[in-house]
């Protein structure tokens, strides 16, 4: 980058030597960021496909299990993230206008929102942990669904927990594999059979643990992306206190903004798909 031979060029300290002008550089970085965001969408896309396949084949699991998620906390987190997207966008604007103080304030607010989001998420995870509502192998539910009327069953160890079937042991001759080979099944003819009507959410369907596996994978991976974004924002904040982004060069703020909006957008889909199911 900063090889001595072209230190003498000296017009724009932010212009790398292999670009002809700042416009070309900005265009290249921006295109690179958009392609990176496309790879992120495809990365999450695998999980969204897994979600779709299992929900199409076993809608009763999703209708039942989503009741254990706290819609209020989910909504709160959605609001927090949308606010953070707003402050992030404002931070980009501040950097464009070379308003150093406003930039610092907005970056700090965005970072604060991100902490808030993770705090709420931690509360939610803690509840799941306490009630044994974890991914498949660790799934040992201790409570009824929120909507149930039979009261909180004995959480005593020995007593039959309110929600019984031990997930890892398929009873009888029934298989836990979503129906395979004979005839058109799988992705081709998902959920051809009508559901047994009536008591859908009343009793726990088989394999409810699949929902929690998907829930933890999706929200966990999203949470890691939030953490990554926070690390970059902290770096921007430190930079802004050292006087960076006040000379009209705001590409790092801009790119972080794009990333942050994508993280926000993915959460909105997660909120809809995991919390708000009918």
């Amino acid at each position, binding site marked *: 980058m900063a090889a001595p031979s072209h230190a003498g060029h000296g017009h724009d300290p932010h212009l790398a030597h292999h670009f002809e002008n700042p416009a070309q550089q900005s265009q290249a970085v921006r295109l690179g960021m958009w392609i990176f965001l496309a790879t992120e969408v495809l*990365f999450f896309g*695998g999980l969204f496909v897994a979600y779709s396949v299992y929900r199409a084949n076993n809608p009763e699991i999703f209708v039942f299990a989503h009741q254990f998620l706290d819609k209020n906390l989910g909504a709160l987190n959605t609001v927090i993230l949308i606010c953070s997207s707003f402050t992030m966008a404002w931070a980009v604007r501040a950097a464009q206008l070379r308003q150093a103080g406003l930039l610092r304030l907005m970056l700090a607010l965005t970072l604060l929102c991100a902490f808030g989001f993770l705090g709420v998420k931690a509360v939610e995870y803690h509840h799941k942990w306490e009630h044994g509502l974890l991914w498949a192998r660790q799934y040992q539910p201790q409570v009824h669904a929120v909507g149930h009327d039979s009261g909180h069953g004995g959480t005593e160890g020995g007593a039959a927990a309110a929600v019984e079937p031990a997930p890892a042991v398929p009873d009888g001759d029934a298989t836990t594999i979503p129906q395979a080979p004979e005839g058109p099944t799988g992705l081709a003819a998902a959920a051809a059979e009508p559901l047994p009507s009536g008591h859908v959410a009343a009793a726990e369907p088989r394999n409810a643990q699949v929902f929690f596996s998907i829930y933890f994978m999706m929200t966990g991976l999203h949470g890691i992306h939030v953490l990554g974004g926070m690390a970059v924002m902290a770096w921007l904040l430190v930079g802004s206190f050292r006087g960076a982004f006040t000379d009209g060069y705001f590409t790092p703020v801009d790119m972080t903004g794009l990333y942050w909006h994508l993280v926000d957008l993915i959460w909105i889909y997660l909120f809809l798909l995991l919390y708000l199911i009918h």
Partner: protein
Amino acid sequence: MAVDTSAAAAPAADLPGTGGPSYLDHPRGLGSWLFTLDHKRIGVMYLVAILTSFLLGGVFALLVRTELLTPGPTIMDADTYNKMFTLHGAVMVFLFIIPGIPAALGNFVLPLMLGAKDVALPRLNLASFYFWVAGAVFSLVSIVLGAVDTGWTFYTPYSTTTSSAVVSMTLGAFILGFSSIFTGLNFIVTIHTMRPEGMSWFKMPLFLWGLYSTAIIQVLATPVLGITLLLLAAERVLGIGIFDPALGGDPVLYQHFFWFYSHPAVYIMILPAMGIISEVVSVFSGKHIFGYRFIAASSVAIAVLSFLVWGHHMFTSGQSGLTNVIFSALTFSVAIPSAVKVFNWLATMYKGSIRLAAPMVYVLSFLFLFAIGGLTGLFLGALSTDIHLHDTYFVVAHFHYVMFGGTVIAFLGGIHYWWPKMFGRMYSEKWAAVAALLIFVGFNLTFFTQFVMGSHGMPRRYFNYLPEFTAYHQASTVGSYVLGLGFVVMAAYLLHSLVRGAKAPANPWGGATFEWETTSPPKPHNFDRELVAGDPYDLDALVWDAASGGYVRRDPAAIRVGG
């Protein structure tokens, strides 16, 4: 690589400023290589790393073939054999052939072909290399941890239940995926934003079209492999059960995810190879490439179609008949752009004045072997024959004809084509011909016999076999030794050329693309002047110059800015 080439470049008349230090020896020192942002050095580091992986994967292959010399145990037990073929596959696919052409040759050549100083994002380029190193470490640590015995596809549910070191290997492949994504991203950005004046999309060298199409697949398919392998690792570590039938998961979903990446991945392997063929066939036929636009468009067509055919790996997995028919038909459609390319290359050669130098020998090998590999792919894409042939050595032979006969042969052609540019030295044509012949004969002996035994029902991946297959297996093993010998010869004369080879002129072959407009090896900043692109296959613009021993432009001013 501490070859002293400071005086290597022949002072061609139209190259101002020759004689300065080349990228190989300026700046000096190990640190200047390890932390370099120069695309040429990163390309060379990739080349060394990738050829080392190729050697490793090749040793595993020879061990597998030696084991199969006789029925029953020959040199190892069955469990070791399972680990050997898994290592062979995983090392060759993830460490060697996917990064092979784009990251090593592409990195070196792409900015040169654009007349640029570097790729658009040099730091990301270096990061990509170190991601490759980290991924390689994770993958190879699995050997110490007990190796993996699942086959390179890591199919569930076996991969979630076996006691072997699946997590290390899959995390390695996950990290290698990022390396591949970063390379692809960089190439797309570079081609979009850094083309020189005069180089419209349809004036780009076809190698760049190949790299661009490859990059699209790298960027769009690899993330899906990433999430798949992450789910597989989470399955083993946490027990999330998404692919585990005992926990309510679906193992076939893994196959869909895996092939959604891994089928496009075979086009990541072959598309840049086809780009090399397009360059070399024109230069060594002394003729303008035939059907430029069709070759360019067929690269993109293959990239698009590659995303729509993954189901042909799963014809026997319980997919519905309708799904199978659709995937079969889409699979056939890939043959169209592939054939468009092959016929255009043949038409380029038609009535050309063909020079049988080493790169061209590999082009001819490629055409022969890729035709067989491609056409046998249609046997496997046809539902009825696939039921008979699936999971036999016929499949093994088919993909080796495409991957080795296609990609590796073209990679070798590319190495021989750009070797003088990369290192400033010529190699021995005589020994190059010997090596090419050994490789061609050895390859066909190894894998054609596998077509025959596969169609007779010999299943792939088996440790043991019936006595009637002995002759085929022995012929195949002997072939693999001949193949290995060919590579030993190649390694010997290439290494020899680094030290004792004749100095290479700037343009030894008469190519009209921009990488031949700089010294051999290039200077750290590639070009002393800005270039204006014209027709990259206008070979008549060049003329043999006996003084420099290479080709020079009749009118050097024609490609200079303002010239």
